[in-house]
């Protein structure tokens, strides 16, 4: 599962941040899952739990809060905005799976639903990120 690699990146980044902030313990991590990447929350959480079990230490009793962030795509040509859920019906399962691996492949497989331009931007809800870390010093 490719979610494992992303879960690992969350926890590695959290450890790096805790070292910068001289935290002895990470008490809470808030994670945003961008809608565009279509991460399976249960698999992602399973991966986080497994890696935390392996690492222990700084993650003992860490509260993990995962929220899905709605995606917004904005056309640079006509300024139309839309979301991944709007366009999901118009793409094949395989194209959706490609976007799951590399969200920017949306520029390959989709177009602005209003004017058909490939020149749009992902303004929200792209992929996996940490929105907040809390810890004890």
């Amino acid at each position, binding site marked *: *599962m*490719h979610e*494992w*690699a*992303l879960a*690992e*990146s*969350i926890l*590695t*980044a*959290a450890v*790096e*941040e805790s070292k910068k902030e001289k935290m002895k313990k990470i008490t809470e991590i808030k994670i945003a899952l961008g809608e565009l990447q279509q991460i399976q929350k249960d698999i992602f959480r399973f991966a986080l739990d497994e890696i935390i079990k392996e690492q222990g230490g700084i993650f003992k009793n860490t509260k993990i809060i995962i929220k899905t962030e709605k995606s917004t795509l904005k056309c640079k040509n006509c300024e139309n905005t839309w979301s991944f859920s709007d366009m999901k019906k118009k793409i094949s399962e395989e194209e959706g*799976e*490609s976007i799951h*691996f*590399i*969200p*920017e*492949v949306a*520029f*390959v*497989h989709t177009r602005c639903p209003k004017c058909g331009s*490939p*020149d749009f*931007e*992902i303004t929200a809800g*792209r*992929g*996996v*990120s*940490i*929105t907040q870390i809390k810890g004890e010093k």
Partner: protein
Amino acid sequence: MDVRTSVIDKRLDKIKCIISVASGKGGVGKSLVSSCLALNLSKKGYKVGLLDLDIYGPSFHIILGVNDFSFPKEEKGILPHEISGISFMSIVYFSGDKPAPLRGVDITNVIIELLAITQWGSLDYLIIDMPPGIGDETLDVIHLIKKSKFVVVSTPSKVALGAVDKLLNILTELKLPVLGIVENMKINDLTLIFDYAKEKDLKYLGSVSYDWALEGSIGFPDKLMNTSFMKDFEKVVEKIM
């Protein structure tokens, strides 16, 4: 907070040597040099990977005749496909043959994503096929892959060398390791590239003569190995290693 860059070093830590094949100019044969370098090292018995970072014009799959574009297998990330003994990763597994009209920030995101999720495992060499120029991909490789060394390709052309010189100036300014310069498509006895290398105190890795029959071998790795290009290139590889 973008978390993906935190694991890139870990993904690359079992790779002994990373070589980015770059040029300031397009059309000088970077992809062919990258592909043949990977093929040659693989045939010598080394464990080799190739990462195609030419997002707009990926070429390795064409040079090696890849026609299986199925998704990479997933195992705590994604596993490269094996092509002629080479572990290979490219955007083509997700974009197919469609164009990828990406802006700079999106190119960077693709590169970070590929580096963060690809599980290369242990390799002797990872060859990175770079796009031309000193734009996003070059800056991303410099920024994200700290242990990359560079092989620079030029043709014996003042026009190509003008752009190659700019790339080399940046690499030198940043004190990055340049293994040397390869002169590709040599068609005469002019010593333009040799003299340039000498003047810049760069290693001249040798020349590869223009191979008029090469095009017929594109798409066929076994045929490629028997071209006069590959014969000339063997001497270049010895100097790179």
